[in-house]
């Protein structure tokens, strides 16, 4: 008996990639999963920060899928490499800061590198023609195959019958007749196939797996770049864009205001990197100031905002401890800003 061919499957945690992998497993192909962490993945993050969400059951859906279908899953940190995809997308952005086509090409390219390094034969994805307006169109599928370098070692089992035969099909490593011809945005064929495989539980259909598709997050990211005058970012920036209220009262600094206990605790881990504010005469949120040098006026303004979001918002005066990045603290006594003193455009 010949050794089974080996496929590496891009596993997102959603139903389509699960079905694609399962389709190949059913043909006796050895499948292992790969999942890329870009820093913008919705999976887990904010759920782990906010206290109210910590009580809900959590799971990493990619790991869960891998366990359900009995394959290994390799999770790869691509945060640094992904910067170039986000900053210089050859094919542009979607409706927000989402560079979907470049992103898919990048992930298939990384999977191709992994395939070569680990002696695998081909790559599979859960792509379906016509399902996504940017990355899953019949005319963009060859672009991904070409630009990733995977060429005809990239197989899309859910819509393969609508595409030219790939190497695994031509060589008989997989039976093309037992692949699928799904297309469009309907989920019915996937649901029917899931039932056929006995898969009763799966994560809700994708669409919200990346923060870059989120209008609010994209706005905060663009504001971060504008405020700094450069489109640079690091991993901590990405994490902090996911927590707190963000207000930019002056062009050269913004404030991140913790909204609840879980966020305040999470932000505490960052307080040494920022000038930060904490009300001391009443309970209040931790406030981080991100930006350049702060003048005395800036510090008073920020303290007034910190007081506004504290339990002393209706008091005549609130004591706010200000601590700079070197750890030196002083207390400012300020009048909390009223709601009318905070223009809507300060909210990022």
């Amino acid at each position, binding site marked *: 008996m010949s050794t089974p061919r080996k496929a590496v499957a891009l596993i997102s945690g959603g139903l389509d990639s699960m079905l694609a992998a399962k389709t190949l497993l059913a043909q006796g192909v050895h499948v292992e999963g790969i*999942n890329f*962490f870009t820093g913008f*993945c919705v*999976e*887990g*993050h904010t*759920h*782990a*920060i906010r206290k109210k969400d*910590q009580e809900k*059951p*959590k*799971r*990493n859906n*990619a*790991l*869960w899928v*891998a*366990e359900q279908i*009995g*394959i*290994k*899953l*390799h*999770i*790869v*940190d691509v945060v640094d490499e992904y910067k170039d995809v986000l900053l210089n997308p050859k094919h542009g952005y979607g409706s927000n800061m989402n560079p979907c086509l470049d992103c898919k090409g990048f992930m298939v390219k990384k999977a191709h590198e992994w395939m070569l390094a680990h002696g695998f034969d081909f790559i599979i994805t859960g792509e379906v023609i016509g399902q996504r307006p940017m990355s899953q169109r019949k005319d963009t599928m060859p672009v991904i195959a070409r630009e990733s370098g995977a060429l005809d070692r990239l197989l899309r089992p859910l819509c393969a019958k609508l595409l030219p035969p790939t190497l695994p099909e031509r060589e008989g490593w997989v039976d093309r007749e037992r692949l699928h011809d799904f297309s469009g945005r309907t989920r019915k064929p996937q649901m029917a196939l899931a039932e056929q495989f006995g898969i009763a539980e799966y994560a809700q259909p994708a669409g919200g797996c990346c923060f870059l598709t989120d209008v609010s997050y994209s706005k905060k990211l663009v504001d971060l770049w504008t405020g700094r005058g450069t489109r640079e970012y690091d991993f901590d920036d990405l*994490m902090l864009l996911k927590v707190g209220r963000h207000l930019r009262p002056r062009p050269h600094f913004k404030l991140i205001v913790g909204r609840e206990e879980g966020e305040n*605790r*999470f932000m505490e*881990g960052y307080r040494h990197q920022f000038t930060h504010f904490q009300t001391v005469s009443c309970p209040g949120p931790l406030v981080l100031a991100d930006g350049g040098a702060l003048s005395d006026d800036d510090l008073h303004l920020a303290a007034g905002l910190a007081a506004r979001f504290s339990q002393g918002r209706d008091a005549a005066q609130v004591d706010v401890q200000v601590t700079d990045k070197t750890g030196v603290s002083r207390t400012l006594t300020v009048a909390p800003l009223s709601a009318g003193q905070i223009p809507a455009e300060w909210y990022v």
Partner: protein
Amino acid sequence: MSHHQLDARRLLCPMPVIRTQNKVQGLAPGDTLEVICTDPGAHHDIPAWCRIHGHHVLESRQQGHEWIITVQVGASAN
């Protein structure tokens, strides 16, 4: 067999799993790794990762706001 530690505090899902995975790649079967995390999701995800890769979770306990998960590297590691 040797014992190792990994500080994954302040890291959010899936980073504790990635750090665990990368650390285990350099260990031998039978070695143990104690991972300290603050993301409560890690106490679901690290055991899930262990199950699919053939490693064993010897202990998973909560200590204040931290989770301490002890993993033993399986025979067919990685």
